[in-house]
Each structure stands twice: as structure tokens, then as C-alpha cells.
């Protein structure tokens, strides 16, 4: 007398439970094949169990989240550099990385992209994409000789490297001429360049400029590492430039990510930035062997992104934009906040925690948010 899968589906889908719990319940039910009575009982118990496990109203979840992220911070190491999944790429880890993410830094110290390919199975194609991403400059292609006697610079291009990177001599010449705006003599695989003005100073300057000319790839990415993951090849890059990478043939934009939440926000939007923050914090903590419930990190990430842009946790972000003058004054740069409030005639509504602590009133949180209404005797 077991219930059919259909009716399990029917009774489960109408429950007011979060989708994830519903899915789990459905799977478990399909496995045990209960009778109608058992099904009802199970659902009953699940509903009451869920209700009992729910967060209690008025719970100061923000403070708990902040403490849950901050407390393990004391146990983290300061060791900055270590190796991520890929041995060859250095990433900032530990406390500095955590601070970097929560600060929403514009320029993280070790940006890394994980580039997935549309056809990742072929090593050759992966290598091709890698060369299209990694920046190639003259020093990568051959030796540079400064001929001071004749006031010229010789570039001895390595033929094999050229072939390997899918370049031709004319590519180089074209790029160099466009950038340096000087004529280039070619002799076999040697290029000869002379500065516009024949003096030593401009020769040295030319030598310097020469090294900066981008022949191929993306300027922000000095290095790409190819890694085999399961059946496919994945590229890890030092430096990020999602926009540029998406323009390259063969890159799968649906899966490619960056470890820089700010850039994720720019390219994919705010939800992606939120997920990126959660993922990066979780990974930083996990690497240190610290367990923190993802809910706390979600809350921090939601707070950082809830206005539609990634905001820093600190003076130049969330704390600096609080509505309450007293709360801002109590955090940092006390006097300026008070003076500005005076000029503008601002009003502090005393709704937050700090403000009420300052004026000596109960806070509107936790047990302070429960009000009893007394009926005066008739």
C-alpha cells in the first residue's frame, strides 16, 4: 500500500518549506516508499522539526555573523603566499585575504581567473587559448641587443618560440611599427631598430619602450597555467581581465570566473559578486581549516551587496553610510561626522544599536525588540 511517486510529489510540492529541504525530503521519500499514513506522519514531523529549527524572530543575526567570521580571524595565519589548487600560481591566503575581500579592494593583491573552455578536451586548443590570453612581449620572443656603437637595437627573434605562440614575424613588425612609430629593418630573424633621434638617451628610451609593446595576449595577464581537471583542460591566469578573455575564441563565458568580486560585479552583475564574495571567503576559511556556517558569510555578502554595488565593510562603505550620526561618530572620524550633521541639520532617528546605547536606551534588537502593551485599568 505504498504511495505513488506522483502523490509524494503532490504532497511535497505544496509544503511551505525552502526548496532545498523539499528536494531532500522528496528524494528520501521516493527511496523508502511510505504508505499514505506514514507519508503524512513524516511530513508532519518534518514540518514541526523545521519550525523548531528556524531562527527565532528578533535574533541579532548580524552580530552573530560578524562574530562568527571575526573570531576565527584570530586563529588564522598571516602567511601571505601559498599555493592554490594550481601549484604554479601564488595567491594571498589567510587573514590578509579575508581582509582584502571584506574591504572590497579595487586591486586585490593576487587576482586569478579560472578560464573554462568550450572545447576543453583538446590540449592543443587549450594551449592556443592560453597563448591568446597570456601577454607576449619582445623579451618573451627573443634576445634584445643594444648596439651602442651604431645607435640601434637588434632583436633576435627565436623562430621556435614564434611558431609555438602562433605568431609571424610580420605580426611583430606590424605591432612594433604601430606603437613605436619607427621604421624597422628585417634581416632574417633579426629586427633592427634605430631611434628617431640619434643619441644615446633616446636609444635607451627606445629599449625601454620596446619591452612594453604588447605583441599578443592581454596586458593584465603575465602568466597562464594549464591544468587538467577531470576530462578537460582548465586555464588559470595570473591577473584578471574577464571582458577581454570573453572576446577570445574558445573561452566558455558561462563558467569562467575571477577571484575578484569587484570585477565579477562589473561583468556579471551584483548577484555574481555576492556569490563570488561567499565563495572566496569560504575558500579562504576552509584552507585554514576553520569551519564557519555559510549563512554567516551569506549575510555579510548580502549586506555588502544589497544596495546594488559592492560596498566595503568599514569606514568607506557600510559603516560610513549609516543613517545614524551618532553611530558613525562612534565608529571612526568622530568630529567630522558631528560637524557635517550640524551644517546639514541632520536628524538621528535613534533606530540602530550604537545610538541607543549612547543615549542610554534599550536597543531595538533581541529582547529589547519585544514590547508588552499594557491595557490601563478600565
Amino acid at each position, binding site marked *: 500500500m505504498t504511495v505513488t511517486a506522483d502523490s509524494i510529489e503532490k504532497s511535497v510540492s505544496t509544503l511551505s518549506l525552502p526548496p532545498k529541504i523539499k528536494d531532500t525530503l522528496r528524494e528520501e521519500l521516493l527511496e523508502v516508499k511510505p504508505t499514505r499514513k506514514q507519508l503524512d506522519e513524516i511530513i508532519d514531523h518534518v514540518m514541526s522539526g523545521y519550525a523548531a529549527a528556524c531562527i527565532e524572530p528578533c535574533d541579532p543575526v548580524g552580530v552573530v555573523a560578524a562574530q562568527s567570521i571575526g573570531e576565527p580571524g584570530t586563529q588564522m595565519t598571516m*602567511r601571505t603566499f601559498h599555493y592554490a589548487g594550481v601549484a604554479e600560481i601564488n595567491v594571498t591566503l589567510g587573514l590578509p585575504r579575508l581582509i582584502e575581500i571584506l574591504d572590497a579592494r579595487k586591486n586585490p593583491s593576487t587576482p586569478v581567473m579560472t578560464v573554462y573552455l568550450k572545447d576543453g578536451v583538446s590540449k592543443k586548443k587549450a594551449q592556443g587559448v592560453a597563448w591568446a590570453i597570456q601577454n607576449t612581449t619582445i623579451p618573451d620572443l627573443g634576445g634584445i641587443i643594444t648596439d651602442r656603437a651604431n645607435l640601434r637595437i637588434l632583436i633576435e627573434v627565436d623562430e621556435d618560440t614564434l611558431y609555438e605562440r602562433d605568431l609571424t614575424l610580420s605580426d611583430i613588425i606590424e605591432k612594433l611599427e604601430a606603437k613605436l612609430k619607427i621604421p624597422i629593418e628585417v634581416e632574417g630573424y633579426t629586427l633592427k631598430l634605430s631611434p628617431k633621434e640619434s643619441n644615446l638617451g633616446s636609444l635607451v628610451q627606445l629599449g625601454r619602450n620596446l619591452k612594453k609593446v604588447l605583441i599578443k595576449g592581454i596586458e593584465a595577464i603575465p602568466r597562464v597555467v594549464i591544468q587538467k581537471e577531470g576530462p578537460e583542460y582548465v586555464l588559470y591566469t595570473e591577473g584578471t581581465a574577464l571582458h577581454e578573455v570573453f572576446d577570445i575564441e574558445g573561452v566558455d563565458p558561462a563558467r569562467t570566473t575571477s577571484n575578484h568580486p569587484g570585477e565579477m560585479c562589473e561583468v556579471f552583475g551584483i548577484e555574481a559578486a555576492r556569490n563570488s564574495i561567499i565563495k572566496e571567503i569560504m575558500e579562504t576559511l576552509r584552507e585554514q581549516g576553520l569551519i564557519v556556517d555559510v549563512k554567516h558569510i551569506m*549575510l555579510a555578502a548580502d549586506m555588502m551587496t544589497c544596495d546594488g554595488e559592492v560596498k566595503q565593510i568599514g569606514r568607506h562603505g557600510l559603516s560610513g553610510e549609516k543613517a545614524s550620526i551618532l553611530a558613525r561618530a*562612534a565608529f571612526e572620524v568622530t568630529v567630522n561626522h558631528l560637524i557635517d550633521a550640524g551644517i546639514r541639520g541632520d*536628524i538621528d532617528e535613534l533606530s540602530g544599536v550604537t545610538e541607543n546605547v549612547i543615549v542610554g536606551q534599550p536597543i531595538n534588537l533581541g529582547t529589547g525588540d519585544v514590547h508588552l502593551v499594557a491595557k490601563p485599568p478600565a
Partner: protein
Amino acid sequence: MKQISAPKKISRIKFGLISPREYRNMSVTRIITADTYDEDGFPIDMGLMDPRLGVIDPGLRCKTCNGRAGECPGHFGHIELVAPCVHVGFAKQIRNLLRSTCRSCSRLLLDAGRKKESIEQISARRSQGQTIDSAVDQVFGEASKVEVCPYCGEHQLKITYEKPTTYSEDGDKMLPSDIRNWFEHIPDEDLPVFGMDPDNARPEWMIMTVLPVPPVTVRPSITLQTGQRSEDDLTHKLVDIIRINQRFQENKEAGAPQLIIEDLWELLQYHVTTFMDNSVSGIPPARHRSGRPLKTLSQRLKGKEGRFRGSLSGKRVNFSGRTVISPDPNLSINEVGIPEAIAKELTLTFKVVPRNIEELREYVRRGPTNHPGANYVIRTDGHRLRISDTTCEEIAGMLEYGWFVDRHLKDGDIVLFNRQPSLHKMSIMAHEVKVMPGKTFRLNPAVCPPYNADFDGDEMNLHVQQNEEARAEAVILMRVQENILSPRFGGPIIGGIHDHITGMFLLTREKAIDKNSALDILRKSGVRDLPPPDHIEDGTSYWTGKQIFSQILPEGLNLEYKAEICEECAECKKENCPNDAYVVIKNGELLCGTIDEKSIGAFKGKVVNKIIREFGPAAGAAFIDTMTNLAIRGIMYHGFSFGIDDEDIPKEAVKQIQEINKDAMYGKDSIASLIDKYEHKELDTLPGRSTEETLELRIMQILGRVRDEAGDKAGLHLGIDNSAVAMAVSGARGSMLNLAQMAACVGQQSVRGARIQRGYSGRTLPHFKKGDRGAEAHGFVQASYKSGLSPVEYFFHAIGGREGLVDTAVRTSQSGYLQRRMVNALQDLEAQHDGTVRDTRGVVVQAKYGEDGVDPSRGFDRTHIQRIVKDVMEVPE
């Protein structure tokens, strides 16, 4: 019947500037003399200590409000400045206003359309609760670029601003009085564009003509032991201002030359500036006679010890105590031992009612020196009587309904216990009082992890709550047993530590325990009956340690998991594990497996976790109490010690370790050969690395392996019966790595994750050859701690150790700041009745807390559902 009334509530605070007229209105006197007291020590009228400004001396009454010291809040006076002065705080705003208003007609240098537009923009942002900074800055930016006034056609001159308070127009210095004139003509309707509200902040008020004199209560003078009075910094500053003001006045009246007037004006400006803020860049800070910079108004507000963070957000409190902590395993985790001396000092106030009058009378009768006594009674008229040994009998007789009695702290009272740094909510928990002899606070060692306490001299704080609501809240929300599960990861943060784990580990591996011993072990846990014996040998019954442990497990407990000692074999043999590492608990009986950190430890304890979730926090607390007692009895039964000879390894092993070491240095695939290859440029580089980096990495690899192998060799001779091994594998304390370092080889010392490279040029110490890349030259310590380090090794070891210390010091400050920022940014968030998370303004941050609304310390995931399903399905139809 008394009318129900609610306490007064401040609903909002409005900020604004004060006009000179208001300053004069609120002033009780004009201050004209710089002197404070006359020869007889009385304050001079219209001086800085004028008695109308309030009282600070006890016994005197305020001439304005007739209040005593403490009642009188103090009253402002004022100084009429001879010439207006710029208020430093507004210097930037003044600059912006000068640049964006017309020098002739004072109107905003933008046309009416643009003006309307930005007013709308600003009010829109205001109503949305956003900051208006960017909009206002834009107006300033645009208006200051306008060269000709759109209203009167006046050509605008370039305004330059020099920190802190100097303004010039095309190089001509502007006098504050001219600026004030200019600002007076800015029409009210232009002000909203600058984000200013004309009712609260007229721009001319930013140039002061009247200086308010704070009441004496704000700047109390103190009398030194010599009888000399020492004035507050603010008073000193005010004296300066009045002196200059007077001189200015005299010179002006005498018709002094403009140059002198300007000099005096500047001096007055300097004093007014430093009165407001003594750390303005561009001018030297005003100093005390001793050379110490004065602490003026801004300095009082700023920083950690300033008014906001030091006095308003955090306060010193009464009814609190602090002393050293020490352990007492006989206490419950819910209790705290308090020295009698402290219990007699900290009191609780009770109202005398018919129900408790006799009880309270007894406390009063016992007086302040006999422990459960009382220190004060408060009569119905509010008068407070001190109870002394001589008056206690008398007062006890007088006790009436409606009086209050301040009773000593006694057993069973609820107090808050705290250890700094208070990094999470478990750093302050509510304990039950247990008054004890001695001078330290006592706590059960099982509650050390949430406080992060140890007993090497740590001190902790105690707070006694003073009303019933607070105590009720503490019992329900803050009791230790309510906080066993940490919301950080949803597991127990309280559990067995150190010897508890070792004890349980040893006990549950014990095979034969006779009746006497079994009962003895269980006695402290309150178990009097034994199950049927495990086996009978030569007529005597024997019980296993597992059976004994099972006695304290609640009935109906079912668990199955791998213990800490599990070696993660490729194929788990489950119940037949050779290491006895597979724990099975069925219906409250430990069938197999060893109990170790994974079962009962803080942070990991699966058994603790399960008991709390299924049997409630009270059962959890009781389990931790009995479990720790059992564990201590267990370790005492077994006997446990650790000494220097526990690190002894046989001579052959030492030899083998030396062999391993030698092999790594000079053998095949050794460091020597690597260096050789490197020098001949034959070393294959790792991808993305230079040859040098490759060499370093390979050497580090080899040296790491040397230590591991040496450790393994030593480990072969140190079995599970070795104390250190027992502690390491059970998770009680230390690791196999620590043991390997003690017995076999300390290993490579590192700085910043690499071998030690610093020191002399090309070498770490002068006796090494330049460019020596060998192991010894870069901090490899081949010796074990037991054998002792050579001087060179010792030196390198100290380098590595120092790095660790520096690291910790830097980390604590950084993570402390991170914590402060995190809490500050997130503190206003609250779970609402509808399941959303909002800040106190009402902005929804999450539509459902954590996407599923589940409390992380309770949790509701697949395992819970599986359990429900299993329970229901197991019941026969």
C-alpha cells in the same frame, strides 16, 4: 491604583548650529576676567569659575539652579569676541561657500533651473535615506567654476584657502568679518543646494562672534595634595582666549595701527582654533607649561578613550568583580566558584514583602561580615542605611514591608562571567554562583574553550545583574548549557579537553576492570549499579571500559561514526576495525570503538552534539559533567604520566635516523647532488619557476621528507602505550609531529615559508662559505629536542620562533580591527517575525535568513530528515 506609565524615551536627536543670539540667551553670565579665584580662594564673579556656571565642590549650591554638586548639570556662560573668528571645523565648508556664491550679491553662482534641479536631487536622496555628499559636492564643483554671477554680473575672483583658517581673494587676505558679511547676504532659499537647512544653520554662524564657555562641570579643577588648584586644559585655553580678547579690545580702543590689530586678530583666531581642535595641521598645537599638548574639545571626543567610544558606547559598571581563575572539576559547567570575600561585597537588592520578610530579616541579622548576610537596607523614604556588626540586630528588628535589602551573593544566584577579548557571544555566559573559600574564581575546565581561557594567570570578570528581568533573560538565553552549541559552525564548543580525552581514550580501551574498580570509577558520576559483567575469569567478574562509559549515556542514543584515531584506510572494516576506531552506539550502549576527541571533545564532540540535539541542553550539560568526572576517574585508574624518558628511542633507531639524514645530504637524489646539478645547469626547472626557485623547492621537499621519515622511524618504537602517542592520536594534546620533533628530528626552520636566507652577504652565519646551499647553512635542525640542539641549530630555531611571535602580535591587532568593523557594519541586522532579515531602518537584506531560515546552531539538513523518515518507517503499521 497607580497609573501605568512608560519611561521617557528619546525619539530623535536633531543636529544644528547655534546662532550667536542663542548663545547669549542660554548664557548665565558674560565672562570678562581671565582670573579664576581671588586671594581667599573664592571664585570671581564673571570669571571662568563663576558660581553661576555650576558647582563641582561638594557642599556648595549652584547659584543658578540651586542644585547640589551632582544634581546641577552646569550652565553655559559666554565670551563676546572683539572680532569674529572662523570655527575650524567649518573651514572647508566656508571655503566651498565662498567659491560658489557671488562676491557682490552673495547668491549661488548657478542659474535658477540648475538650482531647482539640485534641490530636488538632494531632497530625493534624503528621502531615500542615502547620503547627499556626492550631490552637494557636484554643486560646489560646478558653482566654483562659474566666473561671472548670473544674477548681478559681477566678475568672481579666485578664492584660495590656506590651512587651517586663512582665505584670500586673488591674493588679498580676507578678514573673518568680511566673510561673515558676505555670508549674511546668502539668501535662505539658496542654502538647501549646499545641503544646509536655513533654520538650523545659517552660514554666518560658522564665523563666531560669541564663544560659549562650557560649564565648570565640564572642566572641573582638581585640588592637589599641596592645596594648590590645578585647572582643566579647557580652562587654560579659555584663559588664553580672554587675555587676548582683552588686549585686542584695549588696542582697538586705543586706535592701534592696523598691523597690530591684525596680529592680535590672528592670535585670537589661533586660540579659538586650538580651543576647538588642538591637532589641526598647519599650526603648532597649544601646549601646557610642561610641554604636553592640551586636550581640547575635539581631543575629548576622538578615539578609543574619547567620549564616544570610551564613555558613551562603553562604561565602567558597579556590581562587578575581577580576579584570577583556577580550575575546579567538581563544579558543574553551569556553575562558577566565587571567593567568599567577593560574595560579601557584591549584592542583590530585594524588596521586602510578606513572602520573604523573615528570610531577608535573617540576612540583615547576620550583618555584613557573616557570609549570607546583607550590607544595606533602603527605607521606604529612599534613605540608605549601612548595616554594621553593631547595628545589624537593630535594623533587622526595624525591617518593614516596602523596604529594600542589599543581600550578599549566595549559592544559586545567577551572574554573568566574562573573559576578554570578548570575541563571540560565548565570551559572556551566565553561571550559577557557588561560594567557596579561596581567592580565585573557579570554573569547570570544560568551559575553557568558549572563553578561550587557561589557568596560567588569566583573570576573568563577573557581573551581578540587578533586576529580575535581566536575571530571567540571563537564565533563559545566556546560561552555559544554552550555549554549548556554537552558532558559528553548529557544533558543541564545550566538551572534554586534555585529560578528559586521554582519560576516555584509555578507559574505553580497557578490557578488564574488576567490580571494585568499576564502581570506584563510576562513583563520581552517580552510577551505583553495574550491568552484567563482560566476562568472568577465575570466579571474578570483569567489566570492559566500554560498558562503564555506556552507563553515562542516555537511553535511546544511536550513533555511528569514525573516531579521531581512524587512520582513513582505503577500505573501512567498520565494526572490525583493527584500531577500534569505528564507534557504534546503539540505544545508549557503546558497542565498539574508542571514545576520543571526535566523540566528546570541544569543537568536535559528536556524542555531546547528539545528546543536546535529542535530549535538550540540560541533558547535554549533565552529560558533560558526568563524562568529565568519569574521564578523570578513568585516567586515575589507568595512571598517566609523561616524562623525558617517554621520548627515548632505541640506539638502532637513532642510528637509522642518522642514516636517513646522511642519505638525504649526500646519497643518491640528495641535496648535494641537486646542488651539483644546479651548478652544472642540469637541473630541470619546474614549470613557471626559475631554476633557483626549483632548487629551493626540491631541497625543502627532501628536508621535509627527512623529518617525516625520521619521525616515522621514531614512531615505530613508540606505540600506543606511550603517553605522548596516546595524547596525540586521541586528540587530547600535541601531535605526532611534536613527538617526532622531540624524539627524532626538529626539521627545517623557516622564515616566510622559505629556508633561512638572511644574515651576512651570501651566507647566514660568518663561518659558512659564501653561496653554501647546504642544509645546515640554511636552518635545518637535524637534532631532536631531546638530544639537544647545537649552537648553530639553536640560533636558527630562535629565528623561526621569533617569526611566529611577531606573526601572532601583528595578527591580533589586525583581526581585532576586522572584528570591530564587521560588528559595526552588521550589528543592526535582525531576524524579523516574517523570516526576513532587515536592518533597523527596515531595509530588507535577506528575504529569508540564510536562504532557508534555519538557525545555524540548530540546523535542519538531510540527516535530520533521514532520521525522521527512519523513525516513522521503523514503527510497524
